Structure formats: structure tokens, C-alpha cells
């Protein structure tokens, strides 16, 4: 059944990079943790297909926005941690301005409107 409260997949896709960059400004993190954090912050309304996060992370790494390193966590298990780079902060700044603009335009249009 369609759940109207779920965010549409196009919007989820468009918001993935700013979400990742914003989360990484709080410190380095790994894919699984990023997914759980987004689920928690959105009250489960933003649902990423788990595996699809990784091509996005790799693309952002190729673009020079983030960097990664493998860390051994316990009993030989490894996790790939990502952290934001200088260019990533710049990219986030630009994305933040774009999203703020869209938000303020929509906010202005919807002010006083009753849906």
C-alpha cells in the first residue's frame, strides 16, 4: 500500500548527497551508520536501499568531497569509514544554499494557503 508520509524516491535521491555531507560534518562514519542515522532523523520516512548508498559514497569520493579508510573494529572485522574533505564542505555550502532557496520559495508560496 502507498504510504503518503513516505518521501518520494526522486526527492530521496536528490537529497542523498547533502544528507551524507551534513552527517559527515559531525565526524567520520560508515555506510551502515549513515543509513541508520538518516532513518532515525527522518522517523523512518527516508528509506534508502541499503546497497545503493555505496555507489553514491564512491562517486562523492571520486569528486574529492569525502575520503575513506578501512578500520579494524573487532576480531578482524573491518569497516570503511568516510570523512568529509575541504571540497566537501564547499559542496555542502553550495547545496545548502540551493535547498534553503527552494525551501524559502515554497514556504513563501504556501504561506497562508490551506491544502
Amino acid at each position: 500500500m502507498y504510504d503518503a508520509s513516505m518521501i518520494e524516491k526522486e526527492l530521496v535521491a536528490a537529497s542523498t548527497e547533502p544528507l551524507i555531507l551534513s552527517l559527515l560534518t559531525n565526524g567520520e562514519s560508515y555506510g551502515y551508520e549513515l543509513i541508520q542515522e538518516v532513518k532515525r532523523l527522518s522517523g523512518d520516512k527516508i528509506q534508502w536501499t541499503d546497497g545503493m548508498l555505496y555507489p553514491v559514497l564512491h562517486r562523492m569520493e571520486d569528486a574529492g568531497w569525502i575520503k575513506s579508510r578501512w578500520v579494524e573494529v573487532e576480531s578482524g572485522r573491518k569497516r570503511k569509514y568516510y570523512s568529509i574533505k575541504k571540497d566537501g564542505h564547499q559542496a555542502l555550502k553550495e547545496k545548502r544554499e540551493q535547498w534553503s532557496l527552494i525551501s524559502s520559495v515554497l514556504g513563501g508560496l504556501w504561506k497562508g494557503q490551506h491544502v
Partner: protein
Amino acid sequence: MFNLEQSIAEWRRQMLAAGLKTPTPLNELESHLREDMRAILATTEPEALAFQLAVSRLGTPGPLRTEFNKLQNQACWPARMGYWLYAGAMILIAASIAVAKYLSVGPGKMGFLPHPLLLYAHVVSLTAGYCAAFFAGCLGICFVCYRFLHTLSPAREQSLDRAARLFAYLATALTFVGIGLALIWTKQQYGGYFAGDLREFASICALIWLVALCVIRRISRVTGRARMLMCIAGNVMVSLAWFGPFMLVHGMAGYWPLAIFLGLNFIFLVIGVAPARERANT
């Protein structure tokens, strides 16, 4: 009886068979799978069920392979062509300069005298540096054309910007090395680092521009368009640094292609500076 390690090995085989060939993404996906399994097992699901659930959440191999394959083909064709052309041009330049030196100086002297070798290395590195700056400029022109034709996607812009950045850094490093070699050669020949040649001044001007281009990329808050336009302006700077001194000595007559080149770059700069037009779709 369920065996987790066997199941993961089987899952890896399926992923590999589906075309996910590079080990890094697969290791990372496996790490994720294990994380998710641990979380699901904490809610007391049976291990076999937890594995199935974690695998289904991770996604099917086909779409995952498609997404990872997109990363391999991310460079747009002007950037890919630029890399290949530059590599080819460098081999050609090095070979032609070597042949020219061989013919003019002779193989014996080339092998023993340090001065021609130093000069040869200077000419090759400076030529390679200037060529890299031209490639960055050409990518800037591609950017302007894509934007003018309304076909500039974010992926294309990113690919062009990345390639232009690489060429700009390469240009700066090679020009720096080339000038350094020239200083040493001048010192050996004339006893001082500068011989008062106009070309020395011109190459230092080009280097200052290239360093500024790299520094602005790193520290200043400039848009992608401004970065690409600066690369086009680099075409003007570097061509003047390269051919300007000869032009001043020999006159404009033989240098009409340079005038055309500069004129074209100015046109692209003007088009790039102009605000984007609305697409006429009515």
C-alpha cells in the same frame, strides 16, 4: 544447518557472477551485510532469516552492478578524449624534440654534455605544462558550449571540472619544473639566473597565472563556471607567454593563427560570462 560463512561466500559468488567485479565495493557491501545481520540478530530473529533479510535489504545484484558501473564511465567524452590526446601529444612532443636535438646536436654530444640535456628537459617540461594549460582551457570551452546548448548536466559539469583541475595542476607543476630547469641552465651558461630574455618574464607570468588558478580552486569561494572561465583565460595567458615574445620580435605578420586563437577564446569567454538564456521551447 545454516552456516553464515558459507552463505556469505555464496552471496559473494552471486554478486561476482552478476558482474560486481571490483573487490572494494564487494568487501564494503559484505561489511554492511554483517553489520545488518548483527542488528537483526539482536532482535532474536533466527540466523538464517536474519541473513535473508539483510541480503534483501542490501539490494539485488543487477541494479547494484548498474550503479557501480556508472562510476567507471563517469568521465564525459571531452574529458576522456582530453586524457588520451594529452598522453599522445606528450609522446609526440618528446619524440619530436628528441629527434630535433639529435639532428642538430648529434647523439654523442647529447649523451655527454649536460647543457643540451638540461635544455631538452626544460623545453619538454615547459611545452608539456603549456599544453596541459591548453587542455584545461579546451575543457573550459566545452563547458561553455554545453551550457550554451543547455546540455550541461551536473555529471558532465563534475567530470569537466575534475579533468580541468587535473590539467591545471599538471600545467602548474610542469611549468614550475620547466622554469626551474631554465634558471639552472641560464646560471650555467651566463653565470646568473636571468639573462634578461623576454621569454623568461613571459613564462614567469604564465606560472603566476597557473598558480593563482590552482590556489583559487582550493581556497576561494568560486563557482564551477568561474573556474572553467579561468581555464579559458589561461589559454590567452599561456599562448601570449609562449608566442608573445616571438611576436614582439618578429612582428604580427607570421602570427595570424595566434590572433585567431585569442579572438576565439575571447568569444567563448564572453559567451561564458553571459547569463544563461532560457531554452526556447514554445
